[in-house]
């Protein structure tokens, strides 16, 4: 009688409808467990999740607070697992019925990212189409960019003054688009230096970028028929520490007094240190980066600044490479498409109940 009474007082309803399934749209290694909360959820301290590999021996694999009804468990792909969920209060634990066996696996396609796949296919397709177009020899128009016309003047000024040109590609790595664009521009600057016999100083932050830059500069000197003018010591590695690199380049600016500083590539907080030091020496400064947070410093401290995508366009404009020109054209059409999507999407969002925002979740 007493036992029955106590059982009635301390009884706790277990979680029900426990359901375990392979986590959808993932790379495998996870099972999701969901349940309906205990009818006594308000008195539950936590829910504990137990797992078994044979349906007999269960081990605790996770816990979650009251009011929560799902959890994800890390698993080995292809292995069968069984789960139970227990509602736990101070003194009582109430187990649910076990789930059916479940095994995790990797999915080929993450359906939640289909919008990204569509975007990549559309923009990638446009770029590839224009690259093909350019390769067939069709002329692709890219408008003039102000900073580029200063390159000739800048190199000419350095030649007249008998001073070197400093080309700083920033602290990016070879996979950064800004660094790649910077290397294209470096090639053209090196050609001009070769033609005018102007000294080039090209210090580097990353050893791989340095390796590529050295080859580019050497090739540029060869292209203009001045392989003898190439100085292997003009392109060199400094350090891969951001501010040590900034300190070293500052020292070069002050001691070598270049007539022109190119600060073109991928920059972070050292941008203002470099641009201010360069400005204090009276050098012409041409800057360019796609780092939005650093552009204000270049705009204020440099004579010409290639803003964001202008840097990529400049690299295409100056090199006339079909690959780059095609990419710029493709990106331009991408911008047109984005503009159209914004206008049409806004009209739909304003005047209909169609859930246009969901397509961009």
């Amino acid at each position, binding site marked *: 009688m007493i036992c029955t009474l106590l059982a009635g007082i301390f009884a706790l309803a277990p979680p029900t409808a426990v359901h375990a399934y392979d986590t959808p749209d993932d790379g495998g290694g996870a099972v999701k467990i969901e349940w309906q909360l205990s009818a006594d959820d308000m008195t539950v301290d936590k829910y504990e999740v137990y797992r078994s590999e044979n349906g007999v021996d269960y081990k605790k694999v996770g816990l979650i607070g009251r009011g929560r009804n799902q959890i994800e468990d890390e698993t080995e792909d292809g292995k069968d697992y069984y789960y139970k969920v227990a509602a736990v209060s101070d003194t009582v634990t109430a187990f649910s019925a076990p789930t059916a066996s479940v095994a995790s696996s990797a999915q080929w396609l993450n359906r939640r990212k289909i919008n990204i796949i569509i975007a990549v296919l559309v923009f990638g397709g446009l770029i590839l189409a224009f690259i093909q177009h350019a390769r067939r020899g069709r002329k692709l128009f890219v408008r003039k960019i102000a900073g580029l016309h200063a390159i000739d003047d800048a190199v000419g000024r350095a030649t007249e003054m008998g001073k070197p040109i400093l080309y700083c590609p920033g602290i990016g790595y070879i996979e950064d688009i800004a660094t790649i664009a910077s290397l294209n521009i470096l090639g053209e600057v090196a050609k001009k230096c070769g033609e005018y016999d102007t000294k080039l100083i090209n210090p580097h932050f990353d050893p791989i970028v340095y390796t590529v830059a050295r080859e580019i500069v050497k090739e540029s000197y060869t292209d203009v028929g001045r392989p003898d003018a190439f100085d292997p010591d003009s392109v060199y590695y400094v350090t891969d520490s951001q501010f040590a690199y900034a300190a070293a380049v500052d020292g070069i600016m002050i001691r070598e007094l270049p007539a022109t500083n190119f600060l073109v590539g991928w920059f972070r907080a050292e941008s203002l240190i470099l641009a201010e030091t360069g400005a204090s020496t009276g050098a012409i400064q041409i800057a360019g980066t796609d780092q939005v947070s650093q552009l204000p410093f270049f705009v204020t401290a440099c004579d010409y600044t290639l803003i964001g995508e202008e840097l990529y366009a400049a690299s295409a404009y100056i090199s006339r490479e079909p690959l780059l020109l095609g990419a710029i054209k493709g990106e331009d059409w991408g911008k047109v498409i984005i503009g159209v999507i914004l206008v049409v999407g806004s009209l739909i*969002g304003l005047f209909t109940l169609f859930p246009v925002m969901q397509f961009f979740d």
Partner: protein
Amino acid sequence: MNISTDPWVWISALCTIAIFSFLWRDNPFYKIAEHVFVGVANGWAVTFYWHNVLMPTLFDPLFRQGQLLFIIPFIIGMLYLTRFIPRVSWLVRIPIGISMGYYVGASIPAVSQALIIKQIQGTFLTPQNFQAWHAGNLGVVWSIILFIGVICTLSYFYFSREHKGILGTTSRIGIVFVMIGFGAAFGYTVMARISLLIGRIQYLLGPWLGIVD
């Protein structure tokens, strides 16, 4: 005043002053600090990459644990060294190409989501976006300004036509938006840099000179 007796604090403080001395002009103290900084950074980088990258992710699995699959990244990595052998120096393009391809491929979905898909979603003129400003009826105004700013800025970065006519007008409005953004970013970053300066001055006045707590 309670000047520090810790030699490391003294070294750190003197290095800070030596670097600050550049604000006056180039001088031997700055040169010493600059060269020490570059040398220490390079020494640190070599040991860091050896102990934190090469040993745990390549040499240990390959040579100590015998995981032969790691021979592939080992060979690809060694190709970087072919740069020193002129006859086969072209092989250096293989690891560079692989690393570029990998990083670009990995970044495209993330960039597309963060910089294109989500930005488009946030720019739409919809009731949800109006409310997202938490500005009552002004949310409509802010959303319209944002919408115009995005369209005009996009037009500024359109390179396939000269900026004349309507495109000229929209691109001029676009660059105004860009410059306003730069102005805000400039002020914000200068503020952050001043806090860095305050941090260094506090270090000099506190742990070194003991003037402030």
